[in-house]
């Protein structure tokens, strides 16, 4: 089994109602499995906010042990590089820049 310490920041906190929780998953689970587990717990709104067409939405930033999920495999990122794995899920405000 894999221990995951999940930290929520930003807009997603209103959906999950907490800023931190621990989730245990079967060995070999990926980020996709963790997010599916959280969707089961918190409902479709969780997935709508974090995913878009099955991949991480632009302004959803997920970090696994300090690395960007996108840069370490995205949805297939492994969660067993460090025990317990620290997963930070941050939903940024709308990304606005430029004139």
């Amino acid at each position: 089994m894999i221990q995951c310490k999940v930290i929520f920041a930003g807009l997603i906190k209103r959906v999950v109602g907490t800023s931190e929780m621990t989730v245990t998953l079967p060995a070999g689970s990926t980020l996709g499995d963790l997010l599916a587990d959280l969707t089961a717990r918190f409902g479709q709104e969780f997935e709508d906010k974090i995913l878009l067409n099955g991949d991480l939405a632009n302004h959803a930033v997920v970090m696994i042990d300090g690395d960007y999920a996108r840069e370490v495999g995205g949805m297939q990122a492994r969660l067993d590089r460090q025990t317990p794995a620290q997963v930070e899920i941050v939903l940024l405000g709308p990304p606005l820049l430029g004139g």
Partner: protein
Amino acid sequence: MAVALPMAGVTEDVWIPTACDMCYNGCTVQVHRVDGVAVKIEGIPGVGPNYGKTCAKGLSALMNVYSPNRVQAPMVRTNPQKGVGVDPGWKEISWDEALDLFASKIKAAMDKDPRSILTHTFDRYTYSVAKAFSTAVGSPNVTMGSAGIFCGNGTHPVAFTLTASNEIHDDLKYCNHLLMFGASAGFVGGHNAMGYSVEMQDARQRGMKLTVVDPVLNYAASHADEWIPIRPGTDAAFALAMMREWVIVQDHYDKTFLKRHTNATYLVGADGRYIRDKATNKPLVGIAATGAALPFDQAPSDEAALEGTFTVDGVQATPAFVVFKKHLEPYTAEYASKVTSVPAATITRVAHEVVEAASIGQTIQLEGDTYPLRTAAISWYRGISAHRHAMASGMLMGQLNMLLGAVDVPGGVLNSSSMGPTWRPNLDPDGFIYPGNPLAGHMKPALPRRKVSAPETLELQELFPTSVYARAMLWLGLLEGDKFGLPYKCEVLVTSRGNIMQTSGDPDTMAKAMKTIGFIVSLNPFEDETAAFADLLLPDQHSLERLTPLVGNPNNFTNAASVDESGTWNFQQPVVKVVEKARNWGEVLIDVAFRAGIGPDMNTALNAACHITGEYQLKRDQKYTWEDFSDRWTKSTVGADHGLDYFRKNGYLKDEARLAKYAYPLIHHGGRVPLYLEHFLDAGVAVKAYTDSRDIEWDVSDYSAVMDFQPCLTEKQAPAQFDMWLVNQKLPFMAGTYSAENPLLMDLAKRNSKVFNIGINRATAARKGIVDGDEIWIETPIGKKVKGIARLTEGIHPECASAPGMFGRTTAGNKDAIGKDGSRGVHFNNLVQFTLDRMDTVSAALDSCVKIKISKA
């Protein structure tokens, strides 16, 4: 601090590298400091993005930092009454008192509803800290303010459509004929102003032809081979007529590009939607030879049909190009001439010249690859974007380039931020490109398709699935949020480096909106119109007093360099300390976050917003100094050996040279761009469904797959005696309202005869009996009446009058900038009608068509 301030009497003579921010291009400059006093600013020869060149604003920045009119200490409002020109009754308090008050208001708002906190800044470099702050408090509301009311609505969405980056620029290295609508890019204006001006002049000297379409003889038009005066808000008709010339009359356009890189060949049914393959759900294309229909990615593109009809499972379908071509038919040159006032012969001639110059079919060898060579391009900016149908006009401009095949190829319009390892865009399931560069993920592209949902943001962003932002709607969210289902009122506005009261639409409407906000904090070097509505005014550091990491960044549109040039990283370091109590507003927000008890979330949000990874990440339970945070951010982004110490010594870092494949990625990414905007159809249906559910009147007619010309509402509604248009244009030596605090720039404006007055066509003035220098009344149909000073010119459309820049100030640190009688210019925005029917419900642009009546005062 890097270069320590000398003790008194110690003779010192140093040049300190830093970055300017008198506009938002962030040029690399060096400041000459003698005995502790900064005496001169210069560029650094050869160093990008400005290659050693600095404009009048950058050169005069010392007059802003040393201005005696600066806010000297934190101040709290004592007069509860708020209004334009109302004295706030400032009382000085200590920083601790101020920040405790600030933090208490943030905590109260978070308890009520975290989304009720709105953070605003137009400071492009420290912007990520504002985004982190709003994320930390749990609010979706962070905005660049009024920018976007006029400028980017018809540009950024189109740039994403064409190049999957938020900005485009023209390839002046190979272009032979540039047709420019409503812009002065390359004439010390616009993005990468200085670098682009160097390239523009070289191109002009090389013989590149320049044609400028604009109601005013602006700085580009005065140097163009041809200036084509046009009636405001009618550029779309001009573009449609040109496309009709190419597609229907001359049959001269880039069919290969359409087949390989657009959805022109995708089959659509009677309802305008793609016909999709049952198995793969991919849009189908028709093969002319066999009459068969195959998924687009399984058919050889060149054999896909642009014309003809096909039947798929008994359903009649035609290539999207057939619909596109048919919709061009009514736009004859004669029709367009009637609408635009441009002679029909001129429209057809320009269409012919541009398509000839495009050399469709030609190729060029660069760095071992063969690229299509299209030596003509169409560019545009705020002139066509500040209108009721900005999205339509913008898309048509993009489509002109598509028909020439001049997209992300030598000579055409190019992306601005695909650099380095993440340059290649991604492809969505239907084959269309969208940003692959995470750093460029700072705007929302229309594809992959976004869902419409109940608004959670004050700017009602959720009702704009095809726009990149919806900033102009801020006032509507503040005043009528509940009508749209917004479950909260705005409790706290944190605003810095941006004067939304003066740069939005009509200030009276904005004043009403600002008064709905519980508590406003303005972090500001000067007391401007927005600060006059604040409850707490905090002295902000000037750019020459503050440390700001990563101002210039090669992936940013202000670094748009041509091939074999490279982007430049630069930063701001403190050169002088003038206002003792001034603090860096980014650092203040972090301080307030910790005081409000959300420090850990702030650190996590900073890691996310600033893309800080690995060992450099801020630990949740620690409080970092601004310098430590800046160093970590810099190293995480540019590399371990390029932290603050490197930048303090060298000031800038030249990035790798831009390879041909980064500059011209079309043939490498092989993705497609939507000529036919099928995704607009469903977006419109979704928006209508939501607005109908709340019985809100919301025009969705512009959500169509093909873009038509519609006149601005102003045109239809204005009574006859309002027979002229007021137009606004920018100046190379003034930007926003900040430069009016600078007496040297104001001096230039006074001596330049075309700033603090109203430009009127000489013949029109004669008809109205107005003589040069006359005081005149300017009245609008909604009852606004302001005084101005007439200045006659040949360089403006006879039906137009010009009120340039951002003047007619009511509150400013520099009292010389305030002039009611028009002697310090007319505030154009004040005459813009700021109502929902004047807004583009697709791109959120505010229509800046203003009908006026002028008469001798």
